[in-house]
């Protein structure tokens, strides 16, 4: 293992473990709670990540470049943006799925505007999350939020794509 590259997570994790241990010894409640929530988050991630990353891998291998280029590329027009929103609404997982997917989409020829629309929409247009929102905050709230946020985030993504496209911007592989 390359120590230089991995010193940040190692230091963060060791520090965190020490902090939680110390919290248990001194009875510091927030520290104890954070240890517990770390374990529960890790457990949740272990249920979510393997299938999510298997699907990402299959997507990368099976979906042809021509298809993405045609439907989400520079020439796709408004259709590409609609695909992006549809993809955002249905694909599960948070940023940890959306970001690697953006990297793959760019490699396969999707335009930057479409990619950023997907990334922005993935944060707020998930269908399961929307059902939660509906049941706790009501239809009017959800409707207004969609009505305002969806056009705005698409427009912002379009501007991002236009501005960054000029400088040959490349999304990185996340390492």
């Amino acid at each position, binding site marked *: 293992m390359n120590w230089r590259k991995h010193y940040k997570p190692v230091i963060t994790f060791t520090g965190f473990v020490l902090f939680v241990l110390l919290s248990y010894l001194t009875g510091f409640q927030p520290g104890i709670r954070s240890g517990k929530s770390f374990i529960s988050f890790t457990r949740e991630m272990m249920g979510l990540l393997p299938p999510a990353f298997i699907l990402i*891998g299959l997507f990368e291998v099976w979906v042809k470049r021509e298809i993405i280029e045609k439907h989400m590329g520079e020439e796709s027009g408004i259709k590409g943006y609609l695909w992006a929103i549809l993809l955002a609404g249905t694909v599960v997982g948070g940023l940890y799925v959306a970001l690697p997917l953006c990297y793959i989409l760019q490699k396969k020829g999707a335009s930057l505007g479409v990619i950023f629309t997907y990334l922005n929409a993935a944060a707020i247009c998930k269908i399961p999350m929307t059902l939660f929102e509906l049941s706790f905050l009501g239809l009017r709230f959800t409707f207004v939020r969609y009505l305002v946020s969806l056009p705005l985030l698409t427009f912002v993504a379009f501007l991002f794509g236009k501005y960054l496209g000029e400088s040959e911007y490349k999304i990185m592989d996340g390492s």
Partner: protein
Amino acid sequence: MASVLMKTVIINTVIPFGVVRKVMPLWIAALVMLVISFFLDRDKTFMALKRSWKTFSRMLSMFIIVLVLVSLSLSFIPPETITRVLSGKGIWFGSLIAASVGSITAMPGFVAFPLAGILAEQGIPYTVLAAFTTTLMMVGFVTFPMEQAFLGTKVAFARNISSLLIALLVSIAVGVAFGEFF
């Protein structure tokens, strides 16, 4: 108060249930696809699995950092603190605080929305709740390292700032729709 207590009980039962419900179809979908792929083309399937592992292992160090940050933020700014901080502030000041809290902390949707529902019941304006939930979803201080690794510092920063502005506009629109301004 009784109904708040009841909802808290509901939240606590919903959390594990929600996780299972969310994960099961995903496992089924992944395994079915994997089997189909295997019968269509073995080499491609192994290549896909190799890619999956590569993508994951590249992100592993980011995962650890983000998980630590999320756990810390959730335990130092627990739902009770958020309720206390947002109660009894006006619309403007309340929204400002809500947007800051929402930007700093990260919370899964199945914790955030029940909490927002409880806050709504306590009479906290919808404008404030919109600022809170929208920034919670769109702006991520604790997930910033991960965004940074994929998008670069400048773009990740610009994206978060633009998301913050969108969130503020959304909360104003919600406030108008609920008649909280006039």
